[in-house]
């Protein structure tokens, strides 16, 4: 049964039981090559149908999700589930399905995902030349169908070629990532070269210790991508309602960050794998600013959060929580070499992980640097520093931007789950902490 037939069958079953519903079926072919120590540790492949059902009755909301064959068994439980619930404060009637399909399918990616035949591509990417390296390479082909009682009959296709490598030179390492809807070996090789460059530079430099305190810090696109994900989370109306947003109390039009910061949600950008012409309620997506020149432009809504908070859907529906599709940080005018010159004296951090909030409402957080991290003096990296923490307030550090790079990178990895196009950023007075 094709994914379209599966969606139609599921919608027929649901519609015989419930009047208001959406059915979403995603058929996914996915091949992942995972590397470590310069070897391929495992090649994984998946072929699966992921079925989601949203159902509402008398203002009560139920959601089913399943990866299983027997649709009837799962769907028949819906009426019983809804009968026992109470009307939801989240409920809003399904909106008009204004979305139109936008597809992008790269043949090379789709074929690799379907067949698992990637030996030639691995050669072309040059992974055997990286030396001691770890990472992963994804080939994903996704076909999505959305059917709803609001009249939605939508479907689209997308592909994703993304990955990341962590290159080791002795005890030092550099890590970088790429993402695209196309098979672009040049993009991947550029990211791999960046990881090699950082690892090799790091390996040449002595290690120095620093004291905790305030530093001028140059953040790589890997780190900017990670932190911008947190800003997009804070701009998610669902997170606001759940009490987990440092934008609580802020209104569209408030100057929250530095005028150098502009962030867009870009669902219509088919060069990044998160694109879609419609959201999970069938509403047309649109590219929109989340932050423009430091001004907060508004929360990301689905119809439910919009009704609850007073507003309009922004075409960012998940069925319960809104979501961003692709994120893009506007470039500045500083060329790559100029960023280090302007940093002059400070730290250049190239990767991070484990971002955690002490206080979601005030934006107090910390995150730990990993891989290459440089002490820069007179615009030159002169030493390495190991695993320091940024421990600060999110709104504060993004109010302290001194410069933004003109060159941007397309990032998607373990710590940047939303495909993001991001530049380098230079910030002042960033609080750096580390063990004694």
């Amino acid at each position, binding site marked *: 049964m094709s994914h379209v037939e599966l969606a139609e069958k599921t919608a027929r079953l649901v519609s015989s039981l419930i009047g208001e519903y959406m059915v979403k079926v995603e058929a996914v072919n996915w091949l992942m090559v995972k590397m*470590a120590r310069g070897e391929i*540790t495992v090649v*994984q492949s998946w*072929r699966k149908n992921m079925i989601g059902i949203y159902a509402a009755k008398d203002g009560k909301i139920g959601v089913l999700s399943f990866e299983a064959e027997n649709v009837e068994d799962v769907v028949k439980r819906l009426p019983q589930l809804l009968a026992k619930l109470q009307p939801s404060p989240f409920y809003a009637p399904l909106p008009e399905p204004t979305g139109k399909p936008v597809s992008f399918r790269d043949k090379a990616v789709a074929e690799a995902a379907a067949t698992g035949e990637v030996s030639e591509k691995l050669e072309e990417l040059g992974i055997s030349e990286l030396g001691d390296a770890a990472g992963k390479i994804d080939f994903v082909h996704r076909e999505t169908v959305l059917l709803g009682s609001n009249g939605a009959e939508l479907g689209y296709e997308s592909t994703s070629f993304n990955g990341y490598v962590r290159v080791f030179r002795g005890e030092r390492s550099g890590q970088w990532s790429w993402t695209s809807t196309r098979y672009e070996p040049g993009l991947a090789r550029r990211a791999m070269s960046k990881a090699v460059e950082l690892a090799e530079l790091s390996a040449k430099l002595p290690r120095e210790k620093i004291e905790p305190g305030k530093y001028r810090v140059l953040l790589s696109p890997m780190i900017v991508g990670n932190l911008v994900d947190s800003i997009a989370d804070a701009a998610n109306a669902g997170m606001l309602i759940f009490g987990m947003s440092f934008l609580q109390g802020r209104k569209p039009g408030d100057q929250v960050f530095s005028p150098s910061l502009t962030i867009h949600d870009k669902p219509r950008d088919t060069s990044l794998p998160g694109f879609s012409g419609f959201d999970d309620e069938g509403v047309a997506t649109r590219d929109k600013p989340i932050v423009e020149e430091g001004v907060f432009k508004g929360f990301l809504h689905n119809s439910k959060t919009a009704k609850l908070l007073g507003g309009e859907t922004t075409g960012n529906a998940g069925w*319960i929580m809104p979501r961003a599709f692709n994120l893009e940080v506007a470039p500045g005018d500083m060329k790559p070499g100029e960023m280090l010159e302007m940093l002059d004296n400070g730290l250049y951090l190239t990767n991070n992980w484990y971002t955690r909030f002490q206080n979601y409402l005030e934006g107090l957080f910390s995150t730990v640097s990993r891989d290459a991290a440089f002490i820069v003096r007179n615009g030159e990296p002169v030493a390495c520093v190991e695993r320091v923490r940024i421990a600060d307030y999110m709104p504060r550090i993004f109010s302290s931007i001194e410069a933004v790079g003109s060159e941007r990178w397309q990032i998607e990895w373990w710590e940047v789950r939303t495909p993001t196009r991001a530049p380098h950023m230079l910030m002042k007075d960033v609080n750096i902490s580390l063990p004694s």
Partner: protein
Amino acid sequence: MSKPDPLLLSSLVEKALSQGASYAEARFHRVRTLQILMINGAILGAGESVSEGVALRVIVGGGLGFSATSSLRREALERAVQRAVASARSAAPYMRRPVEMGPGRVGRARYAVEPVKPFENMSLDVKVSDILEMYKGLELERNGFRVGNVTFNYIESVEEKIIVNSDGAHVESTVPRLMVFYNMAAASGERKANRWNQIGGSGGYELMEKLDIAGNMKDDVESLYINLVKAKEPPRGKIDVVLGPEVVGLAVHESAGHPSEADRILGREAAQAGMSFRTTYKDDVIGSEHVTVMDDPTIPGSYGFYLYDDEGVAAGPRVIYEKGRIVGMLHNRETAAVYGVESNAAARAKDYASEPIVRMANTYLVPGDYSFEELLEDVREGVYIKKYMEWNIDDVRWGQRYVGLEAYMIRNGELAEPVRDAALEVTTKEFYSSIDAVGKDLTFFAGTCGKGEPAQGVPVWFGGPHIRMRGVTLR
């Protein structure tokens, strides 16, 4: 819902062997969940999910291949075998050392956690009503302090597996679990704070009472009140610290359990969850004689419970640190082969779409013999950190940070005024070396531990007693 015939899985293993595999494993894996989401005393909605399918893992020519399918039809399963074999063949030329499965006590067994109150016997009405009652029991407003958002997520699940492999394993299991997590957002004047908490165990609906979820929520409201209304700035610099079991449990998970995962030490997770200081650490001393850390999947009622791992190996307690010395690792059969030891059954997969990798189960610091009062009595000036919000650790599990949500000054052996956001930032060696006394209590906490690619969150417990640390740094 029906399960596939184990003979079908065995036939897939045979098929993989006939296609050139030197090892083959087939795992049927089903996870059913019911989730109820409450916000501020109203039920936002409910959801059910079913994830079921078969995972195939094979070794061909020293390469490891994995494939998974949500279809249980023979044709689809046989195609999945072909894909796994083809994947392994593509990996093989890149292997300097062929992947092998080391020794392990693979079993033939069937086990199940028998709940006192099976989830299916409890109506949704009762579950909804109990959740709303817990919310009504909270004192959300007083003296200008107000908890404005309470989000509560109830998740019950039943995990069923059938594992067969070419080395003779045949293990069938059923483990029901209950997990809740909640977030509370509170304000007092200009100050705001959150408390996020997760509570869980294996068993049935009886865990709602047994784990005292209502009591935990009330206590967390109190923590927020103390943090926002009463707490002052903490001292900074070197000071004695007493840590509560919540922080101790997390710390042993992060800086004893994770760095002792053999795949991490070998670098297999280097680009994702990172490596381990143990890759290059030459000393076997990591802490004081008071430090012994265990991981035990077989603790009854635990959130990380299992009796056989996902390679069909029989599980038991494993010692990681003993009296301050590094003594053990967590192994699956792949890492056991590299180290020339026997697997200690640490292979776990989140679901049918996930490969089994080395994971913790229930990790804890072994209790000593001090009462809480005895831990305090020798502290002239110090800080007691009871609960945390923010934490993180670097990618080799050396530098770590825990920031107190509820914390108190200790003065002359007694608890004094509360302090806010005291940040303990230490290396692993400092952490374990500074411990000079360990309490006789033992409390466990639930977590969802993340690792792997695609990311696999698996249920774990972590725990410990109260401990006393001498001269550590607060930021």
